[in-house]
């Protein structure tokens, strides 16, 4: 499965990847474009990536997660290009034997993704202005 997509994220498809009758707990994390407050309403975020590296880095993160939680299933996707306010830009799905592992594994993957993926966002405001957002 591709870790990067320019289409809306299909959570059902991600769930299909991890479903297994040995996995009793599944956690889905969705990160979505917020309205924002400090600088006015955000209409959309334009996500830019070093695509060749982002795909392989996401692959390394998931491979490391599989080593940490053997038997768990993972699926993840980051959307690139313009993502309108309210729509998900990233999804991480972790399924494990029990809920504690699933929550822990999902949290680990999203945190690593935030720290390691070479992806940047440009906020577009309702008034038409835009700026790079760095966290």
């Amino acid at each position, binding site marked *: 499965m591709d870790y990067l997509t320019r289409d809306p994220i299909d959570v059902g498809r991600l769930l299909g990847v991890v479903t297994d009758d040995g996995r009793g707990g599944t956690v889905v994390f969705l*990160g979505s474009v917020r309205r924002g407050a400090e600088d006015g309403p955000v209409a959309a975020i334009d*996500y*830019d*990536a*070093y695509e*060749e*590296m*982002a795909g*392989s*880095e996401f692959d390394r993160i998931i491979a490391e997660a599989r080593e940490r939680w053997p038997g768990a299933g993972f699926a993840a996707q*980051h959307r690139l290009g313009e993502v309108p306010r309210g729509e998900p*830009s*990233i999804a991480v799905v972790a399924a494990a034997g029990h809920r504690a592992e699933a929550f822990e594994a999902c949290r680990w993957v*999203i945190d690593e*993704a*935030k*720290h*390691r*993926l*070479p*992806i*940047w*966002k*440009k906020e577009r405001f309702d008034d038409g202005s835009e700026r*790079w*957002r*760095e*966290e």
Partner: protein
Amino acid sequence: MHSRDGRAAATATITVHCRFFARYADALGRDEMALEMPDGATVADAVGRLRDTLPKADLLPERPLAAVNREHAAPDTPLADGDEMALLPPLAGG
């Protein structure tokens, strides 16, 4: 130390394919360039050269986040001929 071979190695140059992203690409007005460096140069050396030679490159931090051949790389990472070195603004995915 000063053999013919030694001199040849000391003057050898490598070509590194540099890539710039997001805010850095905007600031520099370009998203890639070829950079010649002496053999044995590191990521920090290449960044120093860019900061000294490119217009507006003072907008680059002294120690930007970098990747070599699509993996995160520390400033002391040695570069080889043909390597792709990317300078990455603070990451903001998710």
